[in-house]
């Protein structure tokens, strides 16, 4: 079964702290995406990770992919309130051979407090 699991599902952070969101998936893939969703809004693409060891950074967010462990991480550095949102990882299990179909994790609701 193709499964993508995120943890934690709920994350309450203080401003200035660091934390990591984990995304585990069930079978081999080397194409993984991270999206952000603000309340009442649609999904916005954050990162595209296409190979083992891929690391991408944008501001206070850094995403990495370990295909051997079937794990991606989204690391938050020195959190600020503007990062409050729901974060989804999504996996293309077919490696681009099935029209780009994605399987999504449940989402992690991140709240950053002062």
């Amino acid at each position, binding site marked *: 079964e193709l499964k*993508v699991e995120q943890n934690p*599902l709920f994350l309450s952070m203080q401003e200035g702290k660091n934390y990591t969101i984990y995304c585990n998936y069930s079978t081999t893939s080397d194409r993984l*995406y991270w*999206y952000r969703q603000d309340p009442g*809004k*649609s*999904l*916005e*693409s954050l990162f*595209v990770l296409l190979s083992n060891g891929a690391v991408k950074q944008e501001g206070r967010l850094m995403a990495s992919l370990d295909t051997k462990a079937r794990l991606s991480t989204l690391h938050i550095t020195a959190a600020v309130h503007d990062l409050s949102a729901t974060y*989804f990882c*999504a996996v293309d299990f077919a490696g*681009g*051979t*099935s*029209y*780009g*179909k*994605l*399987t*999504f*994790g*449940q*989402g992690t609701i991140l709240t950053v407090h002062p």
Partner: protein
Amino acid sequence: DVKVTQSSRYLVKRTGEKVFLECVQDMDHENMFWYRQDPGLGLRLIYFSYDVKMKEKGDIPEGYSVSREKKERFSLILESASTNQTSMYLCASSLDDYNEQFFGPGTRLTVL
């Protein structure tokens, strides 16, 4: 910028009604997708299309059908709406099989 638009942001329908949700993209993307989003379940794929008039079932196609008569437009049809189809519906498109998906603003459908 890629733009994916959906015909309605909010929709209220009655049980048994036929419901049409429209999605249009303006970047000549090959692939288009319909998802529903429910709390705690993430996004689940209903149907997708990889070319005009071509469609494939996703993970939860029961109770839904789709139509893609033009490349830029992908419609989701609920033949006879039921209360368990109350959800947020998101449309997405991608240039091809190897590129990220871009999402529309979503339609929040309530079936009474």
